[in-house]
């Protein structure tokens, strides 16, 4: 009984919340209790048909045995806050050793850094905003080119067994290579740091897109391909109406992994190539022995990476069809 009575309480809670912000006449008449802003647990005893147990007079005053429903998001938020607090506490303890800046010091420094993110004092001294944008630009170009080549290639490999067998040894050989191992080749070919960094992004982020797209094409249920065969659809129709939509979720996974790799690699690549960029900034601050700035950079890299990932998850949800 308890479990049964909890469910409507949760519903009521949700409804009451939405009604408060936008009271509507129609729904208010159908659920008059919901329109008034009352806490869900106070409301429960007045809903006789839902929970007959609560009609006992003793329980009507204060139903002790009904647990107040704690919303799921609240528990999650508390857990997250607790995790972050633990992290900061651990950091503070580590900082007691004197080598690391304390969280508070870092915070003060961050306020300063982000107070003026877009200043320019010569090529090697620019605001963090410029550095992040420069890195994002490189990632954008490198990753964009990887997508332009990797996704169609993935389709081709998924569709034609022969091509896939042809590509398999090369892909298996090159995929596990550390991204930075490509940098000398890039420097050699392009004779400049910036295109070499972009090229490293390209080569390290192309694999997940090729592989996931190819797997997606191969995973298409035979039923759909039978439809294509029975209708004798043209190759273009097969692609646009069956292959592409069926593969899209896999492709989006590949894109997400690729963006992750690209953002991971850019910091390392920029440390080596220099110029403007968050990776270079980290290295520069290390040379200046400005440790709070290094920590700020780490957080910035993390937050930007998280934002990119969330953006793509959102995009992927838009494209899912079930």
């Amino acid at each position, binding site marked *: 009984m308890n479990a049964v009575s909890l469910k409507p309480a949760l519903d009521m809670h949700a409804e009451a919340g939405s009604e408060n912000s936008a009271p509507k006449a129609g729904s208010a008449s159908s659920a008059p209790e919901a329109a008034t802003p009352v806490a869900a647990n106070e409301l429960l005893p007045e809903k006789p048909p839902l929970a007959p147990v609560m009609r006992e007079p003793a329980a009507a005053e204060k139903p002790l045995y009904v647990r107040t429903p704690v919303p799921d998001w609240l528990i999650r938020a508390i857990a997250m806050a607790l995790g972050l607090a633990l992290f900061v506490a651990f950091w503070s303890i580590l900082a007691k050793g004197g080598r690391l800046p304390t969280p508070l010091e870092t915070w003060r420094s961050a306020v300063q850094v982000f107070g003026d993110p877009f200043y320019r004092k010569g090529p090697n001294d620019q605001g963090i905003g410029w550095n992040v944008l420069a890195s994002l630009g490189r990632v954008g170009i490198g990753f964009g080119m990887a997508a332009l080549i990797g996704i169609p290639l993935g389709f081709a490999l998924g569709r034609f067994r022969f091509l896939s067998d042809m590509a398999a040894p090369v892909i298996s050989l090159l995929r596990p290579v550390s991204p930075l191992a490509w940098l000398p080749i890039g420097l050699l070919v392009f004779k400049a740091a910036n295109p070499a960094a972009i090229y490293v992004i390209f080569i390290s982020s192309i694999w997940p897109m090729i592989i996931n797209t190819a797997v997606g094409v191969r995973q298409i249920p035979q*039923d*759909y391909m*039978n*439809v294509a*065969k*029975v*209708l*004798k*659809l043209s190759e273009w*129709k097969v692609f646009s*109406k*069956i292959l592409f*939509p*069926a593969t899209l979720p896999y492709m989006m996974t590949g894109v997400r992994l690729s963006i992750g790799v690209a953002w991971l690699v850019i910091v390392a690549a920029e440390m080596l190539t220099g110029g403007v960029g968050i990776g270079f900034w980290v290295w520069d601050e290390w040379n200046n022995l400005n440790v709070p700035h290094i920590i700020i950079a780490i957080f910035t890299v993390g937050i930007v990476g998280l934002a990119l990932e969330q953006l793509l998850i959102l995009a992927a949800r838009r494209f899912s*069809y*079930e």
Partner: protein
Amino acid sequence: MNKYLSIDDVGMVFETKKGPFTALKDINLEIKEGEFVSLIGHSGCGKSTLLNLVTGLLKPTAGAMILAGREISGPGPDRGVVFQNHSLLPWLTCLENVYLAVERVFAAKESKADMKRRAEEALKLVHLEHALHKYPHEISGGMKQRVGIARALSMEPKVLLMDEPFGALDALTRAHLQDELTRIVAATDGGPGRTVIMVTHDVDEAVLLSDRVVMMTNGPAATIGEILHVDLPRPRDRLALAHHPRYMELRAAVLQFLYQKQMKVAA
């Protein structure tokens, strides 16, 4: 006899890891225009294989098939196929699913508006005019199967091929769709969908719907065992037939074939 579809000495041998496997052997069947034929047999007897041969998804290793004067050499839109698991594309609405088939057949001759009308007509025929813009996951299994039928019929095929079309549905929905199918086939008399081959393992379904029931022997090397002419008058009514002596006889004949002559040992 007016041969519309003829299957001559067709055999099918699959190459497997354990060597060749003869699925079908010496299949001879002639189907008249406008006939409703059921293929019935125990599971694994190759009835779906035979249908896939007519569909063109498989190529026979022996014999030939001729549909309306032309040899069947591969799949094509002159045969409307209804799959057991509906096989609708989940990212297209019901209308778009049907339109894809219509477009394939009529794009050369008709305007987009005409083709859209055709797709709508087909869905109307299966009583789904209210679900034109719904996606497959938003409708019930029975409705999905109706969209599948509408898609197959919309191409105005020479023959409608159905592979256990109602096998995945519950008994009540199945009965309802069987009645619908009878109505649809009657409604398109002289039009598309009048010639039907249906694979089934449901004895009542076979007798209720068919002009002839083709009973297949057990595999390997399955072939046609007996052919039963269902001489019940149309339109057939499910309730009236339930106590019809002729219906009982026919039903008993199929059951006898399946459970006495072709008793499956390890079923």
